[in-house]
């Protein structure tokens, strides 16, 4: 579904991601571990197509189509969605409008209410987007928007950061819903989850994992094994481990 080939990304003239390659199949979920500043968010932003993140080498294929230079809204309409770690506040715009926009502008109040109910977010529908939201509310709002958008492929940037124990299980449920984790076969949604701590993996199962260090992929393998190793030795352990 997603193929990233030798991708190099610059931000403000500074190279952050160097020759990164990986692919994610249909129905598969990949976890991306890495310490702060390793380039995880930059990689996600580049895949989503934000203009500040300039691809200087390599390419990104989505469903075999080269999307490397497509604008962000086209990528979104092709079926790529993103959960922002720190989304901006959009004053004046209500969550209800945002969800409606994610549904493609269809004026269906009942569907919006129903989706919000599932996300335990009915009370947030009339609030301005991300304005005064708690950490958990930000993530639930992001996931509600994504569920309304129903993308084939989701980029999840630290869905577990700043989320308390009560919220993390709900966040996990919503991600599982988004990634069709209830289906054992014929799953059509795929995802890439960035996690610094790995907490979300207690709630969401992933198929494979990579570690990103200093803008390059350091290792790939079984998510549990990699996480256990990171928990024991920290990312410093990864640095001494050979590629």
């Amino acid at each position, binding site marked *: 579904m997603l193929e990233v080939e030798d991708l190099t990304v610059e931000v403000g003239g500074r190279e952050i991601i160097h020759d990164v390659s990986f692919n994610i199949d249909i129905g598969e979920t990949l976890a991306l571990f890495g310490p702060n500043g390793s380039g995880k968010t930059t990689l996600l932003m580049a895949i989503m197509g*934000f203009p500040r993140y300039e691809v200087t080498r390599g390419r990104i294929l989505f469903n075999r189509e080269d999307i490397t230079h497509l604008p962000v*809204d086209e990528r979104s309409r092709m079926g790529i*969605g993103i959960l922002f770690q720190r989304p*901006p506040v959009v004053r*004046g*715009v209500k969550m209800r*409008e*945002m969800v409606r*926009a994610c549904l493609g502008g269809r004026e269906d109040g009942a569907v919006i209410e129903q989706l919000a109910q599932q996300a335990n977010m009915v009370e947030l529908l009339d609030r301005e987007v991300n304005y005064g939201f708690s950490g958990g509310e930000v993530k639930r709002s992001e996931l509600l928007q994504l569920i309304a*958008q129903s993308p084939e492929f989701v980029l999840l940037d630290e869905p577990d950061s700043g989320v308390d124990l009560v919220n993390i299980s709900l966040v996990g449920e919503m991600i599982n819903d988004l990634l069709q984790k209830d289906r054992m076969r014929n799953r059509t949604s795929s995802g890439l989850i960035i996690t610094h701590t790995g907490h979300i993996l207690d709630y969401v199962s992933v198929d494979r994992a990579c570690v990103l260090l200093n803008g390059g992929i350091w290792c790939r393998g079984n998510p549990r094994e990699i996480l256990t190793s990171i928990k024991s030795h920290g990312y410093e352990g990864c640095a001494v481990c050979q590629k």
Partner: protein
Amino acid sequence: MSEITRSKATGERAQKVQGKTAPPADDIDLDAYTSVAEEHPYQEDPSRLPPQAKERILESGVTLDNLAQRSGTFLQIDHSVIHSKAQQGGLEVMSSLEALEKYPWLSDYWWQAVSADADKFTAEAERNQHHGYFIRSLPGTKAIQPVQACLYLAQHGLAQNVHNVIIAEEDSELHIITGCATAKMEREGLHIGISEFYVKKGAKVTFTMIHNWAPKMAVRPRSGIIIEEGSVFLSNYVCLKPVRTLQMYPTARCVGENALVRFNSVLVAAPGTTMDVGSRAILGARGSRAEIVSRVITTGGSIIARGHLVGQVADVKGHLECRGLILSEKGTIHAIPELEGLVEGVDLSHEAAVGKIAEEEIEYLMARGLSRDEAVAVIVRGFLSVDIEGLPPELSAQMQRAIDMSEQELL
């Protein structure tokens, strides 16, 4: 005070300021406009107005077709009152000149909330008044539907000077929607609108004014509001259409304990439009509160967005918020928030922000599948939709309709 002495006193005061301008908006030559207007006949059924006029009036939020949507109607074209009627018991709706004749006591209110000698425009209205409305809710009356008032300018080059007086008697509730419009976009004219509000003890008034002028119109509203103990005044002002020059600075005085005033303004300045608009609240009694919120957008015109809170006694609270968006290289916004605390124990605050739409917000919406233009439209629509507490749903919907209609042109 008798009417004769009133006229003499205010007339003399007004005469002194006939040359006095109202800075800093550009000056207006009163002699450039005619005050001779063609008479328009009274209409028993305002829904029979020509469709074009009805459409322009509708754009300013006033619906003439559905009687069930209003508790009273006042319609003035140029200098002629063509319809005035109260549809609910306990309400009075008529020409203010007619009211002045009918009720000698009205002179006690005349030019009390707005000073006749404030500037040359008030002086001109005092000297040369062309009706305006008188709306009064009797004690205890609760109007469910709004009174709809429309001041319409049809004749090219005309000066329309109206004087409105609104009285909400004790424990009454009154909702007013005023639409001001011109017949055709090319119309040139001057509108001077004096509005005096008296909100008595325990009363509530919501006043929604939608201006739908034309690119060559000069507009000078002058409003004063007196708010008594435990009463509420909510004002919503919307001006999204081009107007050559608009200057207003309505002033509310909270004279009774626990009085509440809230001003919301939504303005859009197109190229060629100059707006100098503010709201002022003078908190003169304990427990009184004020909130002034303005959202302004320039697409090429210039806007001065003012706000002024004055805390005269202890235990008062006021907040002022101004947000401005510049959507064009040529537009300017100058926000001037003023807080004036005159004693210990006042709580006044303000926040102001002027700039362009944050790129980060546009991209955020684009990541949800919206094109850049759609993202900007959603953000601008959100920006313009000021939450208004206390408006009846129908009035709220009417105001939103007027905003939506203008937005389509704006975007």
